[in-house]
């Protein structure tokens, strides 16, 4: 089993991680040497190319995944289960991984691939089962099916893979970032001299592999994180630099809305009731609160209206938020942030862990916002999402903007190379 979130001890070496639980002796000696030899053989057979003595924390995600695979093989696995193995990888790393998986397959190992990326299914598998709401809804040979058919099985109806969207009608630049540098909590510079311009009525997609500074950038833009140097302009007026910066509430009042990357850590108070989350961040505004007293009748009425409009299920404002599904939690955040008709919308990973039906709904809402003239910054690690929504795409790698493309005939390979920092 290779989990989506790796089960590795970060400050151990590769070797130590692999023999963990199978040490076999009190003082390392003979067994360890034998293990080393076996592992070297395995590495050679499957071209895993791992240095057994390197520490996990020094390895890239792609290599950590290989360590997980090696661990399973060493324990004599005949069936390898991979849970969303490509979520954190660059396209090049995915290619490498698939090569490894193919060679394992040739050696007679069984591979179970759990993924929501249909391309991978078509590319790698020989048979496919589709699971929907805990039920197996279909099983077929991969060569007898296609992506559209699989997608239909997954949602129970056909979905558009490419969104229909009107020609972009852009206005003035409403959100401008100049030479922005941001540090993280450990004082490491994560965003380096970034420049961005977003016009009214366009979606700027920010692609990049997780952990290349997108999180810190979003936090700085929304006023959560301090700006180290550089300036941010909203509607032509400077809102933040290293000396003066508006806090998230003041930015909201100026028409900036933010759908954060991690909905449970930041976007919601999961112990709150749904209606309390639906006014979160806007709770001090009329009609929700008058002279600091919450107006429950108006809040509930508003919540019911908005839940219906955004198809949040179940439509019960009094339910505790953690009882909603991921997709519906995301809809709660989205409805809250979009409802105020913001001039600028920052969106981080809008569809992470969300079912396809909700993804479609969320994408459509974002396009509607664009057509109404909002300037949208879309930060996503899903290339498909960036490609299908954005009018313009910038790629972030190691804290820097490494490329900017108009979104016509740009390929995912092109972007992938940028994301991996190859060009």
């Amino acid at each position, binding site marked *: 089993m290779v989990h989506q979130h790796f089960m590795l001890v970060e400050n151990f070496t590769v070797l130590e991680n692999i023999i963990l639980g199978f040490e076999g002796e009190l003082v390392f000696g003979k067994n360890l040497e034998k293990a080393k030899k076996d592992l070297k053989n395995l590495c050679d057979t499957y071209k895993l190319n791992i240095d057994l003595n390197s520490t996990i924390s020094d390895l890239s995600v792609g290599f950590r995944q290989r360590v997980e695979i090696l661990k399973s093989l060493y324990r004599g696995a005949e069936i390898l289960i991979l849970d969303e193995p490509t979520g954190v990888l660059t396209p090049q790393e995915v290619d490498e991984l698939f090569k490894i998986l193919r060679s394992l397959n040739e050696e007679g190992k069984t591979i179970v691939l759990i993924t929501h990326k249909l391309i991978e299914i078509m590319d790698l598998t020989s048979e496919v089962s589709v699971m929907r709401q805990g039920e197996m809804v279909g099983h077929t040979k991969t060569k007898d099916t296609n992506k559209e058919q699989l997608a239909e099985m997954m949602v129970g109806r056909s979905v558009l893979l490419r969104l229909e969207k009107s020609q972009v009608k852009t206005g003035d630049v409403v959100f401008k970032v100049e030479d922005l540098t941001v540090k993280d909590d450990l004082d490491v510079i994560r965003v380096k001299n970034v420049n961005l311009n977003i016009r009214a009525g366009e979606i700027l997609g920010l692609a990049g592999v997780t952990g290349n500074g997108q999180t810190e950038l979003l936090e700085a833009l929304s006023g959560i994180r301090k700006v180290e140097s550089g300036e941010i302009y909203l509607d032509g007026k400077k809102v933040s630099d290293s000396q003066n910066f508006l806090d998230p509430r*003041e930015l909201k009042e100026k028409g900036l809305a933010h759908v954060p990357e991690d909905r449970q850590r930041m976007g919601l108070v999961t112990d709150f009731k749904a209606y309390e989350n639906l006014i979160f961040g806007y*709770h001090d505004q009329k009609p929700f609160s008058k002279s600091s007293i919450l107006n429950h009748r108006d809040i509930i009425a508003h919540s019911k209206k908005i839940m219906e409009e955004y198809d949040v299920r179940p439509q019960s404002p009094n339910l505790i938020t953690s*009882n909603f599904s991921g997709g519906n939690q995301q809809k709660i955040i989205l409805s809250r942030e979009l409802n105020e008709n913001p001039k600028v919308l920052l969106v981080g990973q809008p569809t992470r862990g969300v079912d396809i039906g909700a993804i479609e709904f969320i994408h459509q809402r974002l396009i509607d916002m664009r057509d109404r003239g909002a300037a949208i910054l879309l930060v996503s690690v899903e290339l498909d999402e960036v490609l299908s929504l954005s009018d313009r795409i910038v790629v972030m790698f190691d804290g820097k903007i490494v490329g900017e493309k108009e979104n016509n005939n740009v390929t995912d390979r092109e972007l992938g190379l940028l994301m991996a920092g190859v060009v």
Partner: protein
Amino acid sequence: MATVDKSKVPWWVSNLIVPLINLILALFVSGLFIFIAGENPFEAVRLIIYGSFGYIEGFAYTLYYTTNFIFTGLAFAVAFHCRLFNIGGEGQAYIGGLGVFLVAINFSFLPVPIVWLLAVMGAVVFGAAWAFIPAYLQATRGSHVVITTIMFNFIAASLMVFLLVDIIRDTTQMGPHTIALPEEQWFPSFEDFAALFGIKIRYSPLNISFLLAIAASVFVWFLVWKTRWGYEMRAVGHNTQAAIYAGISPYKNIIIAMCISGGLAGLLGVNEILGVHHKIVAGFPAGYGFTGIAVALMGRNHPIGIFPAAFLFGILYQGGSEVTFDMPNITRYMFVAVQGVIILFSGALENLFRPQIENFFVNRLNLKAKA
């Protein structure tokens, strides 16, 4: 055992049945203690009920204790909604008492109702000020309030002993206490109230602070669930990251929550000084601040829960003293142990039987729904 779907558990199961079963278990274990000590537990229960309900003065005592527990229970609950563990209620109450006394004695030229109002405000301000320092340290330096408030209890106690011995002691007396407040400033007691109706009863410490406690309960309920401040405090308590995202300042809310908490604890001083002693007596908070933690936990940090929990502890305090009076084998410390067992079952082991009980009721309701 399957986990329970929390949304299907009826509110009365988790908020009434579970605490009640925990309480019964605690009483059962306490009964064993009493049995081992060589007394009849049933007789002890009878004495507790007689002591706390059996005669009017006893009942008045029960309500007097309840008053104190409501103040300290509410104090703990308010801070807890912001996920702050304020165990400094004891010290805040002590300093709150100082506020009451200083205000009452220095403004005695004013009409009595105004003095009362000012004295209540004095209690709140002094209690809040004592909570402010740990709150400030928590908000800006990350010094944990559990540590600092506990230390501030000791500092408060030392400070008060110093003041009572060297500065504000009644110099005509030997004991470490102040002079008494003018008699017209004393809070009307239950005796006075009964006398209005021509009923003559003996002394009890119950006074109109009890009404203040009820008012404080309503205030806390309103604050926490009906105002923007309560909303923001709860947001900070449940998810600080999200609060920052929404533009809610954790710094501000930690300080506000602690100051309100300290102010409520300070109100204990009103009951003790205006209502009972009419002067500052060394050590008057007598552990109410700590018991308040148990009261709040048992009452699930909600004023509606805190009231019965405070009443229960009032019964134990009053009924317990009746038992120690009549049963030579049972000492005062026995009842400290009983309290401990109640805290253990309703606080620490609160979730011991919760899943089973909730499961039981959910299954029964499901069966009923099917039938």
